[in-house]
């Protein structure tokens, strides 16, 4: 009995050691190794995926590059680790990666039980429905008895189940493991509806044999604020990651782009002067070079540029800004003052 108790005590103590061993060391570790290890998705087009040459592309990938630009003044000082949905949080907890930029939804349990800190949201997503127009349905409320194509394991399946139960509707899930197979099955007519994050639906529709025959229903049934995350324990590193994301949003608010950032250095606007480090202060407060925000905008771009380049209307995904527009344009992107 005594032995068991001691064993439990020792085990829980060592577990605590494992979880808290990193306190305050993340930034130093990152600086001394000279690059950031970022966990990314690896197979979601527009967010994190290598192209045909093996070069990483995407909104999440560019977010990680912005953090590298802030810390090292060089957006290329980042290495990417592709992670599965199961691996992502463990990889962050175990120190295999420094920051997770892998379209992860911020939730209370992840923030607390998993010991993570999510920072500013870099994409507001939500779950929606894609239907064939032949179905003649105008609203998700009319989907009683529908067969629904859905990916397993993620929150998507759970959300759909909740939605149909709340609205007292019957549904038949058709669960398919792989995104591309899911789309093929749907276009082959095996299910009436495909449900997924809205950011994916537009892309799925774009690859349909005849995109005009399909429509996205107006209902968004879940909130998915996708944000980068770091471990508990190093607040300074967390601040840097947070403000690297916010800097891109702030730059768009101030009208600074990667093209005009050099002219903006001469701006008389005190907010711009402070932001770009012409008048010092922000850099020192974060423990970074005063040019940190300038480097982000110069090398990666402001949020609007990054959005349009990876997922915007001129890309294959063709997403509208929607919730991800600046607050001044009716969206949710809002940056606290940089002072």
């Amino acid at each position, binding site marked *: 009995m005594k032995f068991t108790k001691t064993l439990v005590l020792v085990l829980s103590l060592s577990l605590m050691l*494992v979880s808290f*061993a*990193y306190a305050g060391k993340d930034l130093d570790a990152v600086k001394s190794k000279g690059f950031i290890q970022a966990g990314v998705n*690896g*197979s*979601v*087009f527009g967010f994190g*995926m*290598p*192209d*045909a*040459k*093996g070069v990483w592309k995407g909104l999440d990938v560019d977010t990680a590059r912005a953090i590298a630009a802030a810390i090292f003044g060089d957006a290329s000082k980042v*290495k990417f*680790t*592709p*992670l*599965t949905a*199961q*691996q992502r949080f*463990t*990889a962050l*907890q*175990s*120190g*295999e990666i420094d920051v997770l930029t892998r379209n992860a939804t911020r939730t209370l349990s992840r923030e607390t039980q998993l010991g993570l800190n999510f920072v500013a949201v870099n994409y507001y997503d939500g779950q929606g429905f894609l239907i064939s127009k032949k179905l003649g349905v105008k609203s998700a409320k009319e989907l009683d008895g529908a067969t629904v194509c859905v990916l397993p394991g993620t929150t998507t399946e759970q959300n759909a189940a909740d939605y149909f139960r709340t609205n007292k509707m019957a549904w038949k899930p058709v669960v398919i493991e*792989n*995104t*591309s*197979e899911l*789309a*093929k099955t749907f276009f082959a007519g095996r299910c009436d509806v495909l449900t997924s994050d809205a950011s994916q639906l537009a*892309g799925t529709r*774009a*690859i349909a*044999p005849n995109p005009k025959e399909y429509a996205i229903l107006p209902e968004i049934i879940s909130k998915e604020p996708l944000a980068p995350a770091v471990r508990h324990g190093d607040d300074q590193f967390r601040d840097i990651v947070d403000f690297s994301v916010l800097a891109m949003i702030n730059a768009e608010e101030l009208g600074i782009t990667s093209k005009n950032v050099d002219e903006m250095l001469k701006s008389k606007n005190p907010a711009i002067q402070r932001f770009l480090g012409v008048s010092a202060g922000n850099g020192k407060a974060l423990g970074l070079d005063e040019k940190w925000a300038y480097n982000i905008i110069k090398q990666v771009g402001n949020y609007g540029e990054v959005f349009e380049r990876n997922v915007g209307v001129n890309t*294959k*995904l063709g997403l509208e800004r929607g919730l991800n527009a600046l607050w001044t344009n009716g969206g949710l992107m809002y940056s606290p003052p940089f002072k």
Partner: protein
Amino acid sequence: MTQTTKAKRERLSPPITNVGVIGWLKTNLFSTWYNSLLTVIIVAAMSWLIPPLVRWAFIDSLWNSSAEACRDIDGACWSVIPQNIKFIFLGFFPSGQEWRPVLAMALLLGLVIYSKDRSRWKKSLAWLWLINLIIMGTLMYGGVFGMPVVETSQWSGLPLTLLLSFFGMVVAYPLGVLLALGRRSKMPAIKTLCVVYIEMIRGVPLISLLFMSSIMFPLFLPEGITIDKVLRALIAIILFTAAYIAEVVRGGLQAMPRGQYEAADSLGLNYNQTMRLIILPQALKIVIPPTVGILLSAFKDTSLVVIIALYDVLKTTMVTLSNPDWTGYSTEAYIFLATLYFTFCYAMSSYSRKLEKDLHTGH
């Protein structure tokens, strides 16, 4: 009298229904009524299936076009492979350095082909392998002779598949033999250890071992110490394959008649000599077919590393298919992959048949 009979004995050709095409058809395809029925059904099915398949695969197909051009055709879009060939085969290997993994793979295949001939199995061949493995490792990793370092996290595609399967098999085989010997050992400690190991590993699926190695294992390591992801997966594959090989080899050991052991004893050979000279050569020969079966499934099992986000050739293909341009052409891509895997597996199994024939000594 005798002359007339001889003249009458001219050679008559057999009835036309017994020889030639018709004869062959009769004996092989229409010998009984149910065989005739089967033949008719199969011919009908083939004539119904094959023309559209040929039309899809060869006539209406595109072989090296853009994704846009593929949208307008009804046939196969094989372009998905050539258009993404670099990423499918080499993954993240940096541009401009592609020759290195290509050369390393060529060396490996060349050496495997060279080693096929049993007359070349000498000590010098072992040295040749060792030197070549060092060269291949250097080519992949770099860091000398002006080749930039390419970390293992960037090793992907076909080189990764070959690396995992080659080392998986080559290290697992001797380990498996040792475990089989250990399981038959008279020393209780060693025997128990081997039994526990073999049964434990065989009791869990490879996927759970891979998950352990990639998700659980890092949490147990002290801070700052990380073991290479590729190495962790490789070790999981080796441990898994070795347990299966051990049981197959044990079957071979049990098949050896007692007389062989007694003959070795009466010659005054010790345990090592008995095993090395008498028992193992015969036992391993008996179990070539099941061993090859296990090695083949080990080769195919390497594709499971997909689930721990290692980019083997299956994963690089899947990533290519996530690109909206190419999402619609998974059939073509998977057919290509199946052909690739089949080529490797068929080469291995036909070589094992040859080896079996060569080693057949009639006892």
